[in-house]
């Protein structure tokens, strides 16, 4: 079993929908939780970062971390076709070595 589990999808939604993406993990030492967006043939781009448990909001994006359940989520409100990409969760303890999920492929249809 991988340390970080993420459903690869694909996920297809209509424009304007609320998108929910999530990851589960097994290592209780993880403290830093990131969401990256990756367009085809590009490197990952950091979207959201959360330290320990809690919520963080940035525009249309909200990240949630529930350490008691070892579960993290990313919500995208009012989704746009430009949000179509692969979304990767990544996490680490204190050693800066990121452990990644598989990535979820998202398509937002006009």
């Amino acid at each position, binding site marked *: 079993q991988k340390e970080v589990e993420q459903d*690869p999808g694909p996920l297809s939604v209509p424009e304007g929908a609320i998108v929910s993406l999530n990851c589960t993990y097994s290592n209780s030492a993880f403290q830093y939780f990131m969401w990256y967006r990756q367009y085809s*043939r590009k*490197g990952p781009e950091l979207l959201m970062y959360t330290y320990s448990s809690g919520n963080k909001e940035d525009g249309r994006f909200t990240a949630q971390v529930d350490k008691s359940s070892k579960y993290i989520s990313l919500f995208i409100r009012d989704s746009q076709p430009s949000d179509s990409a692969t979304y990767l969760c990544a996490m680490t303890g204190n*050693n800066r*070595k*990121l*452990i990644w*999920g598989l*990535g979820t492929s998202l398509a937002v249809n006009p």
Partner: protein
Amino acid sequence: GAGVSQSPRYKVAKRGQDVALRCDPISGHVSLFWYQQALGQGPEFLTYFQNEAQLDKSGLPSDRFFAERPEGSVSTLKIQRTQQEDSAVYLCASSTRTGAPNEQYFGPGTRLTVT
């Protein structure tokens, strides 16, 4: 300012050939990371440098993989005697500080295909 750059962007190698992949980090960034991303997978950590010191190489899959950063800026990932299972995108990331795991800025990657 320029981001992280990697070259070549695409590399095709015949099985058994040696390859060298280059990473130019953001100027002044102390830390540099290499990741391997197979098709349809998330990135997997390979190795980490702080300046010229290789602090963690636990992710290198075999002794055919070697990374260096001799002057603490540009880094090269070398793969000897390439095998088909080495086909992947090799991502480089750099970071400005030692205590911020979230601050890794990625390059576009080098797509290696071993035939």
